[in-house]
């Protein structure tokens, strides 16, 4: 198991290196001038040129890349052209809110996926209606779902708020409203934060839920027909015992893979959702950076989210290996 882990982690490091290189390449191609972030839009050309020299933007590529990597390791991602702040600081400010949203959405997606798959494989009566609704919802682009959600739950019913995270002045420590309100024991604020979180999280979770659910259901269905399940039934076990002990563990593999893949898509979806709900997270930050071609910010966000994605895939692989011992024997 340890050698498997070591191998996986070293591949992850390699991937991050490649990602950094890709971002670095894109940065040198991008039209905006990073030096302007430091001296401002009104600076004279001489000042900009001097700043470029100071930043080492005229050095050979390899040197720049090494410096870039060094910056990554020490946490220096450059300065945003828009906010004039260090990108790292910007990300630190906005990341917790996104984390809260993504984690919540992911948990909802897993729960929905499990329901989708189990209801199909075990043939719970009436569940096909629910599955059909979910399928239809997943076909819609997330921004449409968000729009409809706002119109229905805010405009018409007034149950849930349409924007933002609520009025709680969050002193920390996590930067995540939901958690911090609990830490400080503020029940009302917690409920308010939860209401604000619910709609964006659900909107974000629908497409991944269906994707994971379909894969899980398909593999459950496949495993149910397999020989060793027949053996299990021949021992006289109940259907629940058969499903829980024999079927799920063998069918979970593809679903785990899909879950990892969907997490990556979720990072892209979060950009759209945060913009619509004015959720103060990285996605919103990224969405604001795009129209002004703020490439240092775009690069920084992509790197951070990319790293999170790569590491979460390592975790997914680990879970897969725990579920099926044959994986490590490859």
């Amino acid at each position: 198991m340890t050698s498997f882990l070591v191998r996986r982690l070293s591949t992850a490091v390699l991937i991050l290196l490649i990602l950094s290189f890709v971002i670095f390449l894109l940065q040198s191609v991008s039209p905006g001038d990073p030096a302007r972030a430091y001296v401002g839009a009104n600076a004279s050309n001489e000042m900009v040129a001097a700043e470029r020299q100071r930043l080492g933007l005229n050095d050979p590529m390899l040197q720049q890349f090494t410096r870039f990597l060094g910056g990554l390791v020490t946490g220096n991602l450059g300065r945003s052209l828009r906010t004039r702040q260090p990108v790292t600081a910007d990300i630190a400010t906005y990341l917790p809110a996104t984390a809260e949203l993504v984690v919540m959405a992911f948990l909802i997606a897993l729960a929905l996926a499990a329901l989708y798959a189990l209801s199909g494989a075990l043939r719970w009566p009436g569940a096909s209606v629910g599955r059909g609704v979910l399928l239809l919802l997943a076909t819609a682009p997330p921004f449409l779902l968000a729009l409809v959600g706002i119109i229905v739950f805010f405009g018409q019913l007034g149950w849930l708020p349409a924007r933002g995270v609520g009025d709680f002045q969050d002193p920390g420590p996590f930067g995540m409203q939901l958690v911090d309100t609990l830490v400080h024991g503020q029940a009302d604020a917690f409920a308010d934060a939860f209401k604000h979180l619910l709609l964006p999280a659900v909107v974000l979770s629908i497409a991944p839920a269906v994707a994971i659910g379909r894969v899980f259901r398909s593999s459950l269905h496949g495993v149910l027909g397999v020989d060793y399940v027949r053996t299990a039934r021949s021992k006289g076990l109940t259907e629940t015992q058969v499903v829980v002990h024999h079927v799920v563990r063998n069918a979970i593999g593809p679903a785990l893979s899909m879950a990892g893949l969907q997490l990556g898509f979720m990072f892209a979806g979060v950009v759209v959702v945060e913009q619509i709900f004015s959720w103060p997270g990285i996605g919103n930050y990224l969405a604001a950076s795009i129209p002004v071609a703020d490439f240092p910010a775009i690069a920084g966000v992509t790197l951070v989210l990319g790293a999170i994605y790569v590491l979460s895939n390592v975790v997914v692989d680990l879970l897969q290996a725990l579920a099926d011992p044959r994986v490590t024997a490859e």
Partner: protein
Amino acid sequence: MSTTLVPRWRLKPVAIGGAHMARPTAWALVGLLVAVTLVALFARQLAPYNPIQPVGALNLPPLSAGHLLGTDGIGRDLLSRTLIGIQVSWLSALVVVASGLLIGGTIGLVAGATGGWVDSLLLMRITDLFLALPGALVAIAIVAALGPGLFNTLIGVALVWWPYYARIVRGETKALAARPHVEAAKLAKVGRVRILTRHLLPGVVPTAVITASLDIGNVVLLLAALSFLGLGQQSPAPELGADTARALSQLLSQWWVPGIPGLAVLLLTLIANLGGDAIRSLIPVRR
């Protein structure tokens, strides 16, 4: 049904409700696919008005006289804008899927058929690394670097989309290449290229076509999201995602202005997914 673990890149397309669709239904859905493609191709001819010119009163609701889907905040006809938007989204999706299939499929075919170091060390390492990157994010980064615009967006998405096809085609090719009929062909002294084209490729095509057809919906959604963020065609050109984004402020008052482009995306994705499932149930895949 094999019970081996399916690594991330081996996820096969999954049909809605299983592959058991009645043949007439399946053909009807394929017909829908063709119909949408025709509409997309002839959108300009079908559109009643010029999509970028103001032609009517502001913010007319749908089913008004002369404007089936109403008008937007500047008085442009929504039906025309939506039709051109469909043209852009659908044809772009087809182009991206086709390029992914071509590039990824070729790489996968060669990798699976050649085996050895060319396969595992060279081609698949590259594919794996591409796949391990968060595709959508990298696409955003690429397009942001190249500058917004339809062409750049298509390039950005195509660059991150092909590895998926490479993996799937490579898997199928490898499985086929290990079967005795390829060995028998080698014994019959059939040349390498001919083995690829006659003894491998025809076996891979069904899965490739199914994968591609099920993928169109995903690409439509991704392109819509990218255009929502401001990448893609710039205004005043009509584009479904962008139109929704620009009209967000009218959400609670004139819901149709941001809503109808979004619904158009939903329709395209639905038709694409159902059509893909129909194709899957019509093409028999050997196990």
